[in-house]
């Protein structure tokens, strides 16, 4: 029974991790195909990402859009999470549900609505249309993560600062925000990752000039599977791991 459990659990762990283990080495293949065995190791597909203007442009676009999305989502989400802390706010649970709803509504439906609305105002296929669309789906992560951090703060600390004569903005800047910072940072990281990976809304609201890395990967996967995909995947995975590590270190230093 005990062995059966261990074998079963290992099999599922393998099932969960195998796809990631399979795709990463292929980023370094010298072959033109995404197949094993790898004939020789090479960095030609990373060079392709840099040299080929379609890919390099997409990477730059992704970074620009993800950075703007992160700033916007983090500011809006953090303010809202601070507001949601209040005991006296009416309809709190309804507002919270509204803030989480973008994670629930199917992206395709939201995309159709955004596209027809943005086209009506001549606003579609701009950088801002993509940034706003990404912010809508990235923001819930910030709200959840900052709310989580805020519930861990002992409100007596803030009241103590207030009673010692600090004005509210100073209490916020010197007490609340530093204490909530880990939540803000991980919310920002999740927002960045969400924007980097967003495909469906991008299909609807981006024009050819706003083609992102994820969008470019999606169309490459549909047409011809090239190892450039694995190289791009490698960059995304390594980027995510680096962000996660930085966050963990930042948190450890604080603690």
């Amino acid at each position, binding site marked *: 029974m005990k062995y059966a459990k261990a074998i079963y*659990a290992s099999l*599922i*762990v393998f*099932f*969960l*991790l195998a*796809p*990631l283990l*399979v*795709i990463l080495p292929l980023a370094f293949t010298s072959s033109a*195909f*995404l*197949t094993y065995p790898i004939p020789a190791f090479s960095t030609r597909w990373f060079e392709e990402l840099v040299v080929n203007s379609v890919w390099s442009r997409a990477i730059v676009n992704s970074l620009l859009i993800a950075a703007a999305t992160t700033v916007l989502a983090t500011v*809006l*989400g953090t*303010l*809202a999470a601070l*507001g949601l802390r209040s005991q*006296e*706010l*009416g309809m709190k649970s309804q*507002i919270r*549900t*509204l*803030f989480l*709803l973008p994670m629930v*509504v*199917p*992206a*395709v*439906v*939201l*995309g*159709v*609505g*955004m596209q*027809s*609305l943005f086209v009506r105002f001549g606003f579609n296929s701009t950088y801002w249309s993509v940034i*706003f669309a990404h*912010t*809508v789906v990235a*923001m819930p992560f910030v*709200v959840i993560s900052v709310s989580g951090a805020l519930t861990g703060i002992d409100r007596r600390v803030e009241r103590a600062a207030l009673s010692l004569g600090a004005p509210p903005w100073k209490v916020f800047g010197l007490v609340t925000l530093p204490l909530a910072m880990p939540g803000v940072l991980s919310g920002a990281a999740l927002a960045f*990752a969400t924007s*980097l*990976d967003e*495909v469906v809304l991008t*299909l*609807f609201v981006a024009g050819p000039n706003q083609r992102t890395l*994820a969008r470019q*990967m*999606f169309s490459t*996967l549909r047409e011809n*599977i090239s190892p450039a995909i*694995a190289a791009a*995947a490698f960059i*995304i*995975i390594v980027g*995510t791991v680096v962000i*996660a590590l930085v966050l963990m270190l930042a948190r450890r230093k604080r603690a």
Partner: protein
Amino acid sequence: MTGSSRFRSSGFRALILIAPLLVFLGLFFVWPLITVITQAVSDPAVSRVLPQTAAAIGDWDGEGVPAPEIQAAFRADIAANTDDQAMGDVTRRLNSSKSGFRSLMGKTVSAVRENPDIDLAEVDKRWADTAFWKAIQDNASPYTDAFLLASLDMERDSAGSITSMKEGTSANFAILMRTLWTSALVTLSCLIIGLPYAMIAASVSGWKRAVLLGAVLLPLWTSLLVRTAAWMIILQDNGIINQSLMGLGVIKEPLVLIYNRFGVVLAMTHVLLPFMVLPIYSVLITVPGNLMSAAASLGAHPVRAFLRVLLPLSLRGVISGALLVFMASIGYYITPALLGGAADQMISSVIADYSIKSANWSMAAAIGLILLVLTLALYAVYNRLSRDPIQAR
């Protein structure tokens, strides 16, 4: 701290803090969804070109030729129209309700342009036939249920009652059923794999638990697109599975694992498994560990103890997980689009095709509205279950 206490009140300050996000979501989330809803039920083609007629003909009871005022409104609309293409759309629409409109409208438009006060019955005696006026009345409303009906493969016949479309004209309903069926399969396989896994994860501790949970969380953190690409690499004809099976001599021809239902269900199960495991796990860790040994010491067979003790306790997590997985599945686009064949496309692909390829936003919105309502209904159930755990049991 002087200043009016109303402005210092915490409720007011909270409102100021959440206002920016509320405004932002109002503009870029709620408004697009409202656009979907209105677009799904509106059909302004006729009422925009014939506004006065549309306003006047609503009162007509369908008995006898419409009153002279209605006919005058109709003539005035035709005389005022300058957009021939829009009039062509109107003619086409009316002709599909009542054949003969194409020639009738052509004749009438040129006659009315020459003499705006001409008697319509003199232009063509068909204007004495109430059936033609009825067609205008039917199409005059700016609202329609035609798109919503069409997204379920239904239509209104000439008498106005709802009927099914002819076999083979539209596959929307079949694709909706396929979406629900595929999602049910994904939910079931997530449950079969995820329930024992969550139980094992909750029963061990230390590094074992960390590994089991990490394996669930890591894919959740990595890009969906990367994971789907990885499955394409694994499952393709010369992918790892086929190569190793052929190398072992188990098969001679590569198995078709991709661009079919198997590939879609497998990859979606992989992507959505965390949403099944985590809710079940979070319920199970609140269950005291000695319950099972208590059942055993009271003489229950392990199977019986499992069925009577652990399973009922994990039920709430199972239901939450199943709802989450099913809800996410029915709106899935990327994985079926990349790993499925033409016969595995789900409802999201149909919506995207209507919107992006054929710019038919009315149909895209109508099918989207159905998907939206389904998803929100499931979410409402999920929300209820997760909010008051005691009542839900």
